[in-house]
């Protein structure tokens, strides 16, 4: 029965159906209403805070920003971002309270930035992951400089292992789909699979398939804690099927071409992360998100546990000794 993400993760699922409807609709109407000036929008603070637990340790990234064009914008300088957590390991219970350091914006946001973007970036590297651990419960407190507070709560998903391939670096035969299989992470709402595919422009040149990006980022998704498999690379890129070159994505259904390689991040994400990226009701003015930060603003406080691997073809990338195996 219904194992579902009622909305869509970053534009998938039902949003495709909506897009189809919109195409028909716009073709039939085609009557744009005259632009009317409206009141200056409200100024609302957004806190987008994500915790990631990797093999080498934990990392917290906090981006504070505000709605665009707001009147009398609340200054963000001097805001304080604090994480308060409890992590249990066997009989040991660790509690911590850590104030994040302000950092340059590009430590939180990959360029390009939105025009006139005035966000503030805060970061914490928990080297070794002694505090940001799988299963830990962490509270977010953001104190604004003119008063006001934003709060959130997350439970980091449980730890999990990658079963196939078992090695973190492996070699995959060209044109061979690879089943990625992993164990369940407690309390995960979804697994987000991110791939960065390198060397495709050269590898596909002989086939006449142009590739503009190198690396090519592709996103995949497994919904629910129990959905613990995904085929690489064919089942990645589902959110790009309306945008990327069709020939390229069809070509990747067969597997990686020889001469290419990829890095893959597999993240078990919590409720807050999943709700934020999948969106809510349809609204013609933009995406609607389900928040997990409350108080004098809105936003997300999400967490994930991440595993990564390197997949190469014989003719591409750094050589590895382990074979990734193949379908079946």
């Amino acid at each position, binding site marked *: *029965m219904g194992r*579902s*993400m*009622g909305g869509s993760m970053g534009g*998938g*699922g039902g949003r*495709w*159906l909506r897009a*189809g*409807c919109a195409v*028909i*609709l716009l073709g039939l*109407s085609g*009557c*744009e*209403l005259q632009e*009317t*000036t*409206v009141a200056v*929008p*409200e100024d*609302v603070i*957004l806190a*987008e805070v*994500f915790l990631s637990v990797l093999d080498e340790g934990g990392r917290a*990234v906090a981006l504070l*920003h*505000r709605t*665009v*064009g707001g009147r009398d914008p609340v200054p963000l300088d001097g805001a304080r971002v604090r994480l308060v957590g409890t992590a249990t390991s066997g009989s040991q219970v660790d509690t911590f309270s850590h104030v994040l350091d302000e950092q340059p914006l590009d430590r939180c*946001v*990959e360029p390009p*930035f*939105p*025009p006139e973007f005035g966000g503030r970036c805060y970061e914490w590297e928990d080297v070794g992951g002694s505090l940001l651990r799988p299963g830990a419960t962490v509270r977010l407190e953001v104190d604004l400089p003119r008063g006001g507070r934003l709060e959130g709560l997350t439970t980091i998903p449980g730890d999990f292992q990658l079963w196939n391939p078992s090695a973190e670096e492996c070699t995959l035969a060209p044109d061979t789909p690879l089943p990625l299989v992993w164990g369940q992470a407690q309390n995960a*709402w979804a697994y*987000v699979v991110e*791939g960065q595919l390198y060397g495709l422009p050269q590898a596909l040149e002989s086939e006449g398939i142009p590739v503009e990006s190198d690396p090519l980022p592709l996103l*995949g998704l497994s919904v629910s804690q129990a959905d613990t*498999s995904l085929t690489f690379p064919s*089942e990645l*890129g*589902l959110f790009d099927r*309306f945008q990327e070159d*069709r020939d390229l994505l069809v070509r990747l*259904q067969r597997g990686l071409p020889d001469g290419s390689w990829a890095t893959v991040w597999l993240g078990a994400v919590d409720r807050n992360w*999943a*709700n934020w990226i999948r*969106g809510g*009701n*349809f*609204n*013609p*003015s933009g*995406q*609607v998100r*389900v928040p997990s930060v409350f108080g004098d603003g*809105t936003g997300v406080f999400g967490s*994930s546990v991440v595993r*990564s691997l390197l997949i190469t073809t014989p003719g591409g990338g750094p050589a590895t000794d382990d074979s990734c195996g193949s379908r079946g």
Partner: protein
Amino acid sequence: MPSGRLRVQFGTARPAPRRAQFLPWVVVLVVAASGALAYPWQLESQVSGGGEGMGEVVGTVLDADSLPLPGATVLLVDATGLAVRGGETGATGYFRIRDVRPGAYLVRAFRLGSSQEEQAIQVEDGEVVELSFRLGTEALTLEGITVEGEMDANRIRFLREAGVTSFELAGGELKLIPGLAESDPLRAVEVLPGVVSVSDFSAAFNVRGGSADQNLILLDGVPLFNPFHLGGIFSVFNGDMVAAAQLQSGGFPPRYGGRVSSVLNVESDAGPGLFRVDAGISLLATRVAVAGSLPQGVTERLGFRRANWRVSGRRSYVDILAKPAFDFPYHLQDLQGVFDGWTPGGGRLLVTGYTGKDVLNLTTLESEDFPLRIFWEWGNDALGARWILPRARGGTWELRTSVSRFQTGLRFPDFGDSDFSSSIRQATVAAEMVKPLPGRWTFRWGGSGESYRYANRAETGGTVFQKGDGQGWLLGGFLQAEWLPARDWILEGGVRLDGWVPREGEETLVPSPRLSMKRFVGGGEGAVKLSAGRYSQFLHSLRDEELPLGLDIWILAGNRAPHVVSDQLQLGVEGFVARDWFVSLEGYLRTFDGVVTNNLANDPNDPLDDFLAGDGYSRGVDLFVRRSGEGVTGNLAVSWLQTERTFPDFLTGRDPSPSLTYPPVFDRRLGGDLVLRIPLPGTWNGGVRWSVGSGLPYTRALASYPYFGPRNSLGGRLLWLGASEEGEEAEEDEGQFGVLLAPRNSQRFPVYHRLDVSLRRSFSPSWGMISPYLDILNVYNQRNVLFYFYQFDADPPVRSGFSMFPILPTVGVEVRF
């Protein structure tokens, strides 16, 4: 599997809000009203002898082949020429007119397409006069008979029906209501009171504050789950096949079950038995309907005395015309048939079939034109049969069986990992008996068994975004009694029992008492009517009604969704204020408990939280004025409505979600529709429709913010989604924006209004008839708002948007021979 537990539900599906519990008060009110209204009746009874001295006129109306003629009108005309009483023949051609004052009358029987016959009678005290009419076949081009027939059909309904709120649009009326490309029964019901259409783009409608999935849409009694083409722009009904469309918008007697808001029955016309072809071409499609009768030998071998049929086909043609130049990716097609057979004993077999499909094929487009190859098809298939057997003194047995299914599938030929599909199927077996008793009672009872099955799936990229399937049995039974305690009264009551047995979930039994009463006043020209009842529904559509286009995705009640229980009360007055003027004014109050919506923040690890249960209410007043007769005819509908829904507000992100009460998108507080049918000189006919409505609610964007996505591949950093290639300088409009919203549906669009006109001329060459027509929608090009877009990243911030239909002229031609 069924749980084995049985829950008898006298209350509501879930803990009910206070306003949902008015049914006991309704019963008290009805009883009190009965007493109050009965007092003058008792006085009259003493004066008139309580009806003891009244006579009765019964009989049958047969056609030229001596077969029963259903739907014929029988009027008693007194010495002054006034039609004082009337009746209509049932499925077996039987009619019964009670409470006839002693005296001399002319009894007139007629029916559209048949001749008119008259017989003079004398009715004595307590006498039952039995008559038999035989009507010949007559050409269908007599406008006068059409008009007269419509007028009297309305009067018959007024005289016969107790509490049901019912409106009928005959095939001829439908054609003069300006339509999009061609006449459309579903769009035509928008002109009726209490009916709200949310958008020009959708033929879906809402009745008296109910959601669209609470309308039962029937083709000759066979349910259709998604009777629309092109995502709702057109209905599947071919106007050439339609005899009439009847909308029942409230006060349903116990024999009706399955939906809580309205019943729209579209009746097919099997034709008079003569070979006839109706064809037409519009900007939408070409269509042809062929009618005839089986050869006499075949008819007799099959056991019939007469067997008429009509089949029709319709297909859009733009894709075919455009083929040499480019690939137009869409087409629709319908195939419909009806068979109407009569046995020598007066039994009647009606068989209806329909199959239709929409195909959106984007697989042949170049990748530069459309990046993703898509093949999407959807359609209904339905087949039903009714077997009506006459019994003595007007009673009937009726057996019905039908199957109906809707299915849709969206495929991406390049990506075998995708499966977007939805289907629902219903099979029905039902039996019903009508037994008039001597005196003033008529009983009707019956039962039905309905099997439902649905399956929905949205899967792509190796994961399932949404899936669900289920099955259930709906076992229903009813007992309904009509009592005419006096000439001025109709009382109708009974109870319906619906037992729902889902494959997964609790078995439920919902008793639904219903009571209606009507008291005639003003010498029988007016009436006060009151009805109250409980209604239930065991399936839901998940279509987001805030999207102007879309398909219904159905689910069944069970462990994932509750069933709907609706208590309804309505009180009204109606009557003929002059010979050709009918006026009704009716107020209503409804509750809806157990309505559902998608839970877009559901826990993917919880199989039972995909849908959120809620409740709601509606209240309103409907005014309807109809002018029939000679000259300009038409109707005016004015409706006031207030409706709200309450659901857990998942958008807050809180756990548990707080409740949110808001007006749904079909909460049109005040709406009006004026329809005029104007005979013009020569063979011209004109039609005008002017619609006006207060603004519908929408959710305003209050502010926007850059829409980032977290990326573990970027070390946990955020990426502005939709931005240009990494490393390039961002420019305006390159990235997406998220929005923060005002309270749901707290704003309203401007007033909606639109004028449509229709002009039609009929020529009658020797071989038949040809009728070109011109329809112009939105004559003065009013920009009614479909969407607003708020752009807060502009300086200054602006609001733009899209309008609904601009001025839209369409032409077509119809031929008949």
